[in-house]
């Protein structure tokens, strides 16, 4: 899966939870899920659960705590898919 495909996939997943349309429109690897997209901490859990379903992976508590940027989320998903 290319980075571009991964960002497109993540963009679809976060869409229902974002509170900042402008940051969402320009979402890229450096976008912060909480600071930029304004996803609240309760919905961040749903984002990660939706990522698990979409990519058929399981994310541990440690990885969850790292997944605060699009780049970090992509890294976790890529590593899990590769296994």
């Amino acid at each position, binding site marked *: 899966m290319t980075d571009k495909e991964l960002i497109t996939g993540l963009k679809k997943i976060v869409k229902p939870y974002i509170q900042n349309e402008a940051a969402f429109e320009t979402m890229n690897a450096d976008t912060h899920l909480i600071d930029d997209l304004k996803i*609240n*901490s*309760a919905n*961040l*859990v749903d984002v*990660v*659960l939706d990522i698990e379903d979409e990519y058929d992976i399981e994310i541990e*508590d440690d990885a*969850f705590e790292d997944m605060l940027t699009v780049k970090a989320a992509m890294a976790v998903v890529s590593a899990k898919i590769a296994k």
Partner: protein
Amino acid sequence: MTPDKILSLLPYSRPFLFVDGLNYINEDAVQGHYTFRRDEYFYEGHFKEQPITPGVILTETMAQIGLVCLGIYLLRENIESDQALKFALVENHTHFLLPVPPETKVVVTSEKIYFRFGKLKCKVNMKNTSGEIICNGEISGMIVKKS
């Protein structure tokens, strides 16, 4: 952890404690009950001369039994070692089907949908003693680590 121990750990007191007892509790579900007293403080104004339990109080009752009691049970090991854990209501989607007059006994049943990354989401219903559904929906809470 026994139901009595869970009740003793609830962070509420009158007039805002809406749990009388728990019928059962396990990793996946909880059932508890509460009887609304004739003299609950909110009946004085909701409504004028026609006391009906407010929907927000029914929601609170579902949350205290369905989320907080279950959350305490699920976190029992952490709670025994760390008293600083707190819960916050974060999501609520409830349908209200029947009015609840004073002195109604309600039974709340909550089934865990998931408990991941500190968030507990449950499918909850409240019934009267005739088994009729008063309200039902999905409610979520999160652990807040007190600093």
